[in-house]
């Protein structure tokens, strides 16, 4: 633009506001940082990927940032949850009290007032899609609308799903729901659209304590690789179901179902 229109622009509005308009501060489209190495700027080899998600229960503080971020990323309708955080309270009598008010969307502002005994231990457990390697939801879908992609993600074909809700019945972890607006099945996808751009899933991105970890198992420098190949104890949920999840829990107690 020439000097005349530049001056006009500056004079038209308040200085601060127009400065922002005149100088494109952000500039162009969203600049994506490299959060998962080896993906951005390269051809995506869909047949040669393996990702893992690790939840560190000892580091979850129940802030609910992950739930908020997930809801915002996908405009999830109220009452349905792609991810949520549970609070476990263990009494000295070995009784377990579990709750998840609004799936942890408001965080945990107050302790439970309905527990009569002395509390021995409490912890938070984030839950999300387990990305089972032998997914029961994929097995039961009558029309092939949910499937395991070659890179290991269990995804839903929104254009094909008939909304029969069989996959929702079949999921042992209850991570699926029927979207009341689109009337098709939906679930956490480990932010497939972000991972494809080399970004971390939204919930991993916002987690302030590193309770959620995500990375590629093809990258030996990634945190998840080191943890998975390391000596620590990692568990999966409902192992007896034989689903072989790609979601691992570090520090989850035996009470977690």
């Amino acid at each position, binding site marked *: 633009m020439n000097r005349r229109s530049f001056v006009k622009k500056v004079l038209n509005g308040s200085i601060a506001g127009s400065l922002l308009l005149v100088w494109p501060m952000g500039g162009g489209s969203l600049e994506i940082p490299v959060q998962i190495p080896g993906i951005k700027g390269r051809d995506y080899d869909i047949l040669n990927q393996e990702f893992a998600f690790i939840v560190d229960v000892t580091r979850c503080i129940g802030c609910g940032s992950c739930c908020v971020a997930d809801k915002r990323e996908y405009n999830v309708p109220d009452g349905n949850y792609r991810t949520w955080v549970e609070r476990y309270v263990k009494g000295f009598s070995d009784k377990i009290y579990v709750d998840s008010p609004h799936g942890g969307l408001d965080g945990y502002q107050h302790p439970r007032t309905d527990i009569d005994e002395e509390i021995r231990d409490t912890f938070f457990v984030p839950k999300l899609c387990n990305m089972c390697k032998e997914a029961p939801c994929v097995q039961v879908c009558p029309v092939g609308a949910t499937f395991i992609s070659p890179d290991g993600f269990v995804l839903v074909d929104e254009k*094909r799903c008939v909304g029969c809700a069989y996959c929702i019945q079949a999921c042992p972890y209850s991570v699926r729901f029927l979207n009341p607006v689109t009337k098709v099945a939906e679930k956490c996808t480990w932010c497939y659209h972000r991972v494809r751009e080399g970004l971390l899933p939204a919930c991993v991105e916002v987690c302030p304590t590193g309770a959620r970890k995500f990375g590629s198992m093809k990258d030996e420098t990634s945190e998840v690789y080191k943890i998975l190949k390391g000596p620590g104890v990692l568990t999966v949920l409902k192992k007896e179901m034989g689903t072989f999840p790609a979601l691992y829990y570090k520090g989850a107690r035996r009470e977690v179902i």
Partner: protein
Amino acid sequence: MDAGHSSAAMLVSNYVFPNDLHVHWSMMIVLYPYITGLVDGAFIIAALYYLFDVKSLRPVARFSLLFALAFLAIATLPLLLHLGRPERNFNMLLTPSPSSAMAGFGYIYAVSMGVLVFIVLFVYREDLVELRTNSKGLLQLLYRALTFDSIDLSKEAQALDRKIIRFLVGIGIPIAVVLHGYVGFIFGGVKANPTWSTPLMPVIFLFSACVSGISAVILAYILIRKAKGRSIDHGCIKTCIQTLTLFFIMAFTFEMLEVFSHSYLKSGYHHMVEGLLNGPLANSFWLWQVKICSVIPLFVLGVMGIFKIKKRLYNFTAAIVSAILLLQVLIMRWNVVIGGQLMSKSARGYTEFHPQWFDKEGILAVIIVMAIPFIILFVLSRIFPFWETDTESKVK
């Protein structure tokens, strides 16, 4: 499973997974197995006559075929009402997933419908030919199509018809078994749900299906004949009741065996199953399904089978028992389908189900869906007479 060993510990805090609060398979999914069950049971009666030559069932043989047809005709309706995207239902025919029991629906339904329609056409061919010769215009065209445009009623033609009927009924039996058995497997194959996942599920479904169908035929036969002021064939009712007794003993045994194995084996999430049956489902399972609608009919059927009872009393009791058993099967479907979803996969709580009146899967919709087959039956009765005349010469 380490998470506590007493059921009291499990339910201290009723925790339901956030996505488990809503019951996804509602009353339409209770109706669908019920309807295909009625079809199967009615078909058993027809099969007993047409294939196994149980002569005493002649009075209801044709009627039971029409009854099965009327209900099979609307079997897709509850499913379409349930689907989130019913306009995409053809996906089941285009890309049925080989690993999904539910994917079998389109093809199994089409085949069983085809077989049943052809059986009816062959059974009623004589009546249809007569209607064809006595009608004109479009209606005559219809009857010509339904009789393959042939008026041949010679002895050989009728003998061929009988052979074809036997063949079709013969292949109809395994098809009917698959039609309802696969529904049982839809539930039995869900390992995530402890109340559903059992190999006994298809067996339980099949036997109780036969119970419902036979009861329906008995009740409908008695009510319709009484309404028209006609006689009731006692021998026919007796055979039906005997068949019913057999199937019901099997159905009840398997239902109770399933519950008993859970509580005896004490494996997996059995606390939750017991908690479900003794908690939210205590009334509908123990009181209604078992005590009122199973134990009482079992006794009554036993009495009817062992002792000699006057005809009128026998027929009356047959109608009452059939009505109760129709209710039993409906309640059993409710307890399995909806009851099974009340238990959260958290293994720590139960959710609630509140039937709505005006939902597309609501109470009003259920009433309408169940009324339609009777309207169809009425229309069918105008073309295919339910009962043969007193001469009984036309029944093949």
